[in-house]
């Protein structure tokens, strides 16, 4: 791995060091140790040492598969990128996919079979299993999993059921869709998956729905959303009514913040507008105005209008909106649910709890689920498991449930496993390993097949068996194709056409006493399964910008009422249980609501994720309730630190020019701005064959952070950990600034990704005494790490503050920084690891430019438009980041820089950034 740390040397070399007063170690490259080159004994087919190779594979989120490409160098997966062929990636990634490589190499992963706390053997386990006390027909045998849609895994579970007919399979997913399922049952009499065809909608009304937020459908929706933002397309109008801020809410053109109770009334109002007669909704004026306007626009756009209800909405609202969509002839396709289990998730978990406490379970197998952590305390799962004579946990980590069980079996990570997954619409894809398994682990399918004593127990053979179709040679061909494409042809389900029952009655929601807690999965660590992923823990949440923890989001009104200041620590009391966490004031959140996130407060996540933040999923009677009424809020006696990477988000007065917004009519009126060509005292930057530039479309950006994690993975950006963050230090080369601007009765929010601006007249360059910060002939403002002596004058003089300094040896010895040797394997060998005391920053993925240039020059041609793609650009699900060559008049970036909504950050400084922006456009003419 490249490293800038002065290496320890031979004695002869030490003599040289002393000669230069002990300072000269790296001058003239002396004092380096001998180095070995170890070739292959037998070189694998097609592998070229040091050159990246791409393999299609599949990663799952909430049980649904999404196809990605793994980049691997010398047999080490170092990066995940989107798979254009896969309908739920479409070439994009999200933070969870990007962080997959981090999880793979996580040194805290479970590496051995354990009985209690002691390391055990497979032999010991199998004999113990043979003596397990469940009956021969499986009476008392229980299997617990998350959502399973993988054909191969379902086959295993089926086999287990055949072998033990009386056994019971409990499946539950913490981030579930029970309300939607129930709503579908009410509307259609059966559970279906409703997939909105977002791109076909001119008007969208979302009721606390967050399709642009993280989830198995995010990337597909985001791509469609972006498709409707371009200059060409007829603009969509998005109305969002919600209680707390969601990414969809930030993307909305019109947004109101109301309590959950009022949301239901808005649903009633909108349904009425579409012809339902459900009595008059009781709403405050502004909410009524919103509902009326939304209703009118929906009707006007009949056939191209769409209403969406979120997971926090009761089944009635979902049913009502299915009916409303039918009335609107909305672009929604209904598909058979891939989740074949009939019961709802919450029900299944409660059933498990009951059976445990009733002693109906003698043998318990928990496969890749963590009920001890994520089930509500009221279910007393841990106690229940403790009573079971034989319990085994299969998982990536030795987590809370693993500690609760008698046995723990280590599971392989997806990137080192064979398997298959299905996407929301049923599209199947193969899980292909990119690397030999790192530890003595096996896949979930392996274990289940073994437990069912199937004849085949090799994951590879199991998957092959699942996809045996047609003649042998055809099988081989289709198999190769599936591996190559990352998608198995025509496996997507065919849409159903369903009659919707006429809605008869629609019960209103009782006015809640106390405040309503609105709970959603953590934007960084989801339901807690990613808690030990340092990249995700340090990925700041879109609105609060918080890292390493979770907070209580409250409306300023309530805060004032209760005398709570920003970052005060507060106690939230729900059903007698108290959650203590720092409060963060969120203008634009509905009064009377409290925003909470699941996923933190893990006890056995690992060295990174344990004891970070507070556990929210423990509260409440119903498992994973999205809304809990009757919550109480008060200032706490204790203090919990609030760690964020951005303290100030509100823009007012002249500062509004930092994040520029406009309406379509304004854009139509403005003519493209002439580029600032004011003279400068600084030397004219050199000109070369390429003039690289980036244009970031803040109108398309939804603030999902995929670019941030992608950059971290690509450029070996170290993690600094909570202590350093508290010090005000962070290392992200690309940060997403979150801004809000007051707008009428609410706020408008937007996101501004800020990489290095690569100024043509770069303020950082003339101040560096050793020319470590220099321009190259392609317009890049590059940082030469090995020349940097760390005066930090460059960062002091950078108006954009995009440079990052290695205060400690972050990439080396620091506790959080890339802990363990395993993580070094994730490092991108094309990028230097920066040592202590060195400044670093975004360099437009120089290593990729260099690779593209060499490829082109070997073929005696120039780099083609679109051939060079930065890591952030590749990740972005909304294609908000454009990159290219300004020397081409016809290039994407050249055109965008001529666009009417184009602007330059801090243009008045005449730094002439190569990174520029497009305005955020709100498609609503009430000017903000």
């Amino acid at each position, binding site marked *: *791995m*490249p*490293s*800038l740390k002065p290496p320890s040397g031979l004695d*002869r070399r030490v003599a*040289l060091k002393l*000669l*230069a007063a002990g300072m*000269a170690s*790296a*001058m*003239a*490259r*002396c004092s*380096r140790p*001998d*180095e*070995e*080159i*170890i*070739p*292959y*004994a*037998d*070189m694998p087919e097609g592998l*070229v*040492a*040091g*050159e990246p190779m791409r393999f299609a594979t599949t990663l799952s989120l909430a049980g649904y598969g999404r196809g990605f490409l793994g980049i691997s160098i010398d047999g080490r997966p170092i990066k995940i990128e989107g798979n254009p062929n896969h309908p739920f990636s479409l070439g994009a990634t999200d933070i969870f996919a990007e962080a997959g490589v981090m999880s793979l190499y996580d040194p805290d992963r479970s590496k051995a079979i354990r009985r209690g706390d002691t390391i055990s053997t497979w032999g010991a386990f199998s004999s113990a299993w043979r003596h397990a006390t469940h009956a021969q027909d499986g009476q008392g045998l229980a299997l617990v999993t998350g959502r399973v849609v993988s054909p191969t895994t379902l086959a295993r579970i089926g086999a287990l059921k055949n072998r033990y007919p009386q056994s019971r399979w409990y499946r539950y997913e913490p981030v579930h869709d029970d309300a939607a399922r129930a709503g579908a049952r009410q509307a259609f009499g059966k559970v279906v998956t409703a997939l909105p065809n977002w791109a076909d909608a001119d008007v969208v009304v979302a009721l606390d729905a967050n399709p642009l937020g993280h989830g198995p459908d995010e990337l597909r929706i985001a791509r469609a959303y972006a498709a409707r933002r371009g200059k060409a397309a007829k603009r969509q109008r998005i109305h969002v009514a919600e209680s707390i801020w969601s990414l969809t809410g930030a993307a909305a053109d019109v947004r109101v913040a109301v309590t959950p109770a009022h949301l239901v009334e808005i649903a009633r109002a909108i349904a009425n507008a579409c012809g339902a007669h459900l009595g008059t909704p009781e709403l405050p004026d502004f909410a009524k105005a919103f509902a009326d306007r939304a209703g009118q626009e929906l009707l006007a756009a009949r056939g191209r209008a769409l209403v969406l209800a979120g997971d926090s909405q009761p089944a009635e609202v979902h049913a009502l909106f299915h009916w409303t969509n039918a009335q609107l002839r909305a672009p929604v396709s209904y598909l058979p649910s891939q989740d074949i289990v009939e019961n709802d998730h919450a029900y299944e978990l409660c059933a498990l709890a009951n059976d445990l406490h009733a002693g109906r379970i003698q043998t318990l197998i928990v496969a890749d689920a963590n009920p001890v952590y994520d089930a509500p305390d009221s279910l007393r799962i841990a106690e229940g498991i403790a009573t079971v004579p034989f319990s085994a946990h299969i998982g990536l980590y030795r987590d809370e449930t693993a500690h609760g069980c008698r046995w723990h079996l280590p599971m392989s990570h997806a990137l080192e496993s064979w398997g298959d997954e299905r996407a929301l619409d049923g599209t199947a894809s193969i899980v292909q390993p990119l690397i030999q398994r790192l530890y003595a682990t096996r896949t979930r399918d392996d274990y289940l097949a073994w437990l069912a004593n199937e004849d085949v127990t090799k994951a590879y053979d199991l998957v092959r068996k699942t996809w045996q179709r047609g003649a042998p040679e055809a099988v081989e061909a289709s198999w190769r194709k599936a591996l190559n494409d990352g998608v198995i042809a025509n496996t997507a389900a065919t849409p159903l056409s369903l009659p919707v029952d006429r809605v008869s009655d629609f019960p209103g929601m009782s006015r809640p006493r106390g405040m309503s807690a609105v709970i959603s999965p953590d934007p960084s660590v989801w339901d807690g399964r990613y808690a030990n992923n340092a990249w995700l823990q340090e990925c700041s949440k879109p609105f609060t910008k918080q890292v390493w923890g979770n907070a209580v989001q409250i409306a300023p009104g309530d805060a004032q009422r209760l005398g709570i200041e920003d970052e005060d620590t507060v106690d939230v009391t729900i059903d007698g249980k108290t959650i203590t966490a720092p409060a963060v004031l969120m203008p634009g959140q509905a009064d009377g609501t409290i925003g909470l996130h699941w996923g933190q407060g893990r006890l056995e996540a690992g060295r990174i994720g344990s004891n970070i933040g507070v556990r929210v999923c423990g509260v409440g009677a119903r498992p994973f309730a999205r809304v809990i009424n009757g919550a109480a809020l008060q200032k706490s006696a204790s203090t919990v630190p609030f760690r964020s990477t951005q303290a100030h988000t509100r823009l007012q007065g002249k500062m509004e020019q930092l994040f520029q917004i406009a309406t379509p009519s304004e854009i139509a009126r403005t003519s493209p701005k002439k580029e600032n060509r004011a003279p400068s005292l600084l030397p004219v930057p*050199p000109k*070369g*064959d390429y003039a690289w530039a980036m244009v970031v479309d803040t109108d398309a950006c939804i603030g999902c952070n995929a670019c941030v994690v992608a950059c971290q993975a690509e450029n070996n950006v170290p993690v600094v950990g909570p202590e350093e963050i508290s010090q005000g230090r962070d290392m992200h080369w690309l940060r997403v600034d979150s801004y809000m601007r007051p707008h009428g009765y609410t706020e408008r929010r937007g996101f501004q990704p800020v990489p290095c601006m690569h100024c043509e007249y770069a303020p950082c360059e003339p101040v560096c005494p050793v020319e470590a910060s*220099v321009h*190259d*002939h*392609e317009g*890049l403002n*590059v940082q*030469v*790490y*090995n*020349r940097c002596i760390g005066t930090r004058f460059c960062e002091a003089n950078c108006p954009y503050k995009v440079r990052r300094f290695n205060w400690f040896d972050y990439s080396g010895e620091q506790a959080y920084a890339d802990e363990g040797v395993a993580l070094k394997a994730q490092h991108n060998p*094309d*990028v*230097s690891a920066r040592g202590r005391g060195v400044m670093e920053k975004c*360099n437009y993925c*120089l*290593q990729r430019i*260099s690779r593209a240039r*060499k490829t082109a*020059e*070997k073929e*005696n041609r120039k780099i083609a438009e679109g051939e060079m793609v930065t890591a952030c650009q590749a990740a972005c699900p909304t294609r908000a980041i454009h990159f290219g060559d300004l020397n081409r008049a016809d290039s994407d970036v050249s055109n965008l820089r001529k666009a009417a909504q184009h602007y330059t950050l801090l243009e008045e400084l005449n730094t002439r950034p190569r990174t520029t922006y497009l305005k955020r456009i709100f498609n609503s003419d009430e000017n903000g």
Partner: protein
Amino acid sequence: MAQLFRPGANSIAVIVIVALFAGPAAAIAFAYFLWNSPYATDQNLTRAQPVPFSHLHHVGELGLDCRMCHTGVEKAAFAGIPSTHICMTCHSQIWTNAQMLAPVRASYASGKPLHWQRVNRVPDYVFFDHSIHVAKGIGCNVCHGPVQKMALMRQAEPLTMGWCLECHRHPEKYIRPKDDVFDMYWHQPFDQLEVGAKLIRQYLIHTDHLTDCSTCHR
């Protein structure tokens, strides 16, 4: 009272004053020449190898092509050290039981690779790419020297940054037709500078970019 100083004191004073200025200058000069010397740069250094492989024999006498063993040189940054398998393609036929080759056969049998000592090396923060140099007409022996004459491989050049820059600043002095890149016996034509300049145009080499820091450091 007695004299404090003997007459010699004056000359001592003079010497001291002169030394105050001359000393540092001399030290810097000495250091500079030391850094450039093989003592610091490892130039001409040979290292002990598991097998005393002779380029003199394989290249000079048998006339094998570099690419036969260094398979990556045209495709990748890393020229590649031959896998044991490649050695054995020949040595399963000839010198099949030469004592010298015992480690190779052992490696072949066990599948455990040979551990060679790196001879030519640049620091970790220098990203050197063989393939592009070969593709643009820089011959192997420009950096590696007369390999065909080396019984044991040695570092032929200082490999200091100044040395790299010399060629990156004046490629016309060193560039040669692509066909001659692997020719160990190629000699510069008398009009190298004109030919070089022509080749630079022909190979579309962007000389301005060659001296950018970002060309080698990132």
